[in-house]
């Protein structure tokens, strides 16, 4: 790649179940925080990319009124109507093209404003799936979990371990919404059953929140920070809509996206070379499937992998030290939060949930997803500068 792109700053707001503010003020606050963290003013930013979804907002052209609060007044701005990580991809493409040097990316959604879980049903094929009413976000996830468990002998306990790990990690993350102190497998297995085998603690919480990151070209990044986090690789993939056409027990789409990203970043052995992973896991079983798709373990061994403790915060490859989407999922922002959390880990600025058992956290993987049962996936490989390189 001729040009290099880095993430120079990020900002998050404390995720809430019901935030007491308009989404515009929420955007204003997260951007203000970003400018403060980056030490710049809006004049230094060339363009803004937002991640918002009209059906989550309940209004069309949802970026029409976030122009002002985000600082995009009289600036180049656009909107990606997908998970925030895809907006980050667009910003990355803009900077690589050479026409923009500094791009701010923000994503937001407020679950307290929209009817819960319905917006996803509006992605369904209107002439058949929507008429049947069988498929919604959670029932589809349940079908996937069931298929996965049956095919590979994964147990409910192993699913619960994901929730325990992530929600325990979340207790050390000041931004997280759902934190449960001293959580154990029993608590998860006793939580309310939604669609078997998905229980309340296996599913993401409805969240109000926003996240923003600032990306810059190499020259600008070096001016703005002494800890730039470089984007080494990115890969994305879009799978078939029809669940019948997919092998739900696997996530081939993520496998392909990861393959692309690894190739770009020159990663041959993810388990050895990556220091931290932040996944966008809407449901606990997804995280186990994702372990396999990312090549951390072989197909069907996701359950065994989590049993080894490898993905605990003090394990050999911590996954979701922030708590992941199970602890906070403001839908369009979640992918950006994953990127922001990896950036914080690499810069050693994650505070109480910083990974400490490694010599250094240098290479991280951030993941975003869209659609039912992760129909679209995106993977970023991020890298800091080793101390000796600086």
């Amino acid at each position, binding site marked *: *790649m*001729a040009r290099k792109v880095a993430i120079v700053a990020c900002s998050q707001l404390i995720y809430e179940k019901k935030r007491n503010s308009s989404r*515009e003020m929420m955007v204003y606050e997260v951007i203000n925080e970003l400018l403060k963290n980056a030490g710049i003013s809006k004049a230094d930013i060339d*363009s803004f990319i937002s991640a918002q*979804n*009209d*059906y989550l*907002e*309940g*209004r*069309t*052209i949802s*970026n*029409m*009124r976030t*122009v*002002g609060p985000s600082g*995009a*007044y*009289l*600036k*180049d*701005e*656009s*909107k*990606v*109507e*997908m998970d925030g990580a*895809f907006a980050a*991809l*667009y910003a*990355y*493409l*803009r900077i*690589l*093209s*050479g*026409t923009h040097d500094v791009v701010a990316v923000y994503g937001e959604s407020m679950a307290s404003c929209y009817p819960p879980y319905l917006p*996803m049903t*509006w*992605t*369904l094929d*209107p002439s058949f799936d929507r008429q049947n009413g069988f498929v919604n976000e959670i029932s589809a996830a349940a079908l996937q979990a069931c298929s996965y468990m049956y095919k590979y002998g994964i147990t409910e306990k192993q699913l619960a371990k994901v929730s325990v790990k992530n929600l325990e990690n979340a207790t050390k993350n000041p931004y997280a919404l759902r934190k449960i102190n001293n959580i154990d497998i029993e608590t998860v297995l006793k939580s309310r059953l939604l669609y078997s085998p998905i229980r309340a603690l296996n599913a993401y919480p409805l969240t109000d929140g926003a996240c923003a990151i600032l990306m810059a070209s190499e020259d600008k990044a070096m001016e703005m920070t002494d800890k730039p986090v470089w984007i080494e690789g*990115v890969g*994305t*993939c*879009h*799978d*078939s*809509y*029809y669940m019948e*056409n997919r092998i739900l027990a696997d996530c*081939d*789409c993520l496998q*392909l996206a990861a393959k692309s990203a690894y190739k770009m970043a020159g990663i041959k052995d993810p388990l050895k070379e990556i220091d931290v992973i932040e996944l966008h896991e809407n449901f606990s079983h997804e995280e186990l499937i994702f372990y396999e798709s990312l090549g951390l373990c072989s197909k069907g061994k996701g359950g065994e992998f989590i049993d080894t403790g490898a993905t605990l915060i003090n394990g050999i490859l911590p996954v979701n030290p922030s708590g992941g989407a199970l602890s906070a999922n403001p839908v369009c922002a979640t992918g950006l939060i994953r990127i922001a959390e990896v950036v914080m880990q690499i810069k050693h600025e994650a505070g109480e949930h910083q990974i400490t058992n490694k010599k250094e956290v240098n290479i991280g993987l951030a993941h975003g997803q*869209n*659609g*039912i049962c992760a*129909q*679209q996936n995106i993977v970023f490989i991020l890298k800091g500068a080793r101390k000796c390189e600086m």
Partner: protein
Amino acid sequence: MRNVAIVGVGMTKHVSKRRDVNIPEMVYEAVEAVFQETGLAPKDIDAFVTGNMPAFEGINTPELWGGGYWGAYRKPVIRITTGGSTGASVAQGAIYAVASGVYDTVLTLAFEKQSDGDTSVGLNSTSLADFANLNSYGATAVTTQLSSAIGLFVYQATSYMHKSGLTIDQIDKAAAMLRRNAAKNPYAHLKQPNITAEDIAKTPMISYPLRFGHTCPASDGAVAMIFTTKEKAKKITRKPAWVKGLAACSEDGTVLGQFGGGSINIDPAEQRSCKFAAQKAYKMAGITNPEKEIQVAEPYIPFGHQLFIYFERLFLCKEGDAPKLFDQGVMDLNGAIPICPSGGVMSNNAIGAAAMVRIAECALQIMQKAGEHQVTQDVHTAVAHGLGGSANLNVVTVLGDSPN
């Protein structure tokens, strides 16, 4: 910026109702057309960039459903939506994708199937949210007047008429000209080859100064374009169109401000964001005198008066001169700077697609593939424009006939 070529354009014929196809099927027609045009197939495409205006069909992110129909199976897909300017934003997304070097060949799609839903309900979803605050404080009746697009753009018209001396008579003529242009465009929705300004003048006035005849239709349609690198373009087509400059700019709403408060966009006809975007795009393209260097313009004109406003805001003449130049025939199909030889949004309006159709039409003019509505002079440089939101989102793209 790396050279980005446009090697093919595919469009469906825009009509008021396509009840015989659903969205994936309708968009597929445009995809099939562009693949046939270029001889490419899904395996040659590295990424898809797509978008529409989500409110009209009642489907959230339709490419999740339709992607497989369009060849996007197991490919990178990005969705971009920005209201009326969606098509242009999507095209620019594809341009950046190729210019970045990450993807070589990108298929971009924009579409709208307005007949699937109620257009006014869709547009209403913006105003309901906008007015939520006003209504809770006992808003006056003024807000109901704003729930349609015409209620918004009409203020632009009056302000501009006052400053430039534009008359309703001239808007009638402009509307008739655009509809007559569309009659030569096989893809356009409203074709009226013999329509005159008098016919337009007979249509009822909706809100001064705009008549029914000055407004755009609601169409079902899709457009697809393929962008690629200079090296690959050579193998696909003898004469591609080239991207020379692109920019977008956004500002405060033109009628109501944030939450219904005051808007600092004092004059809705000023369109500063359009001027900024045009300046940036022209600078990138190396254009210093647009009045002399542009041979075709496709601004986004859902209402007749905007032909004059955007002719000026795209710097195709001095401020205030557009009405005079219109009368002199400068904007005719065989004039010095033909405006919307395709008939424009006034004749063809599948909202999500409309702004990309502007870019596609400019590309067709440069590639000399516009058929009956090909302008008479050689086209070396063309400018396409998209407008969205509360007339506060402007997107400008400049195309040329040679790479950098």
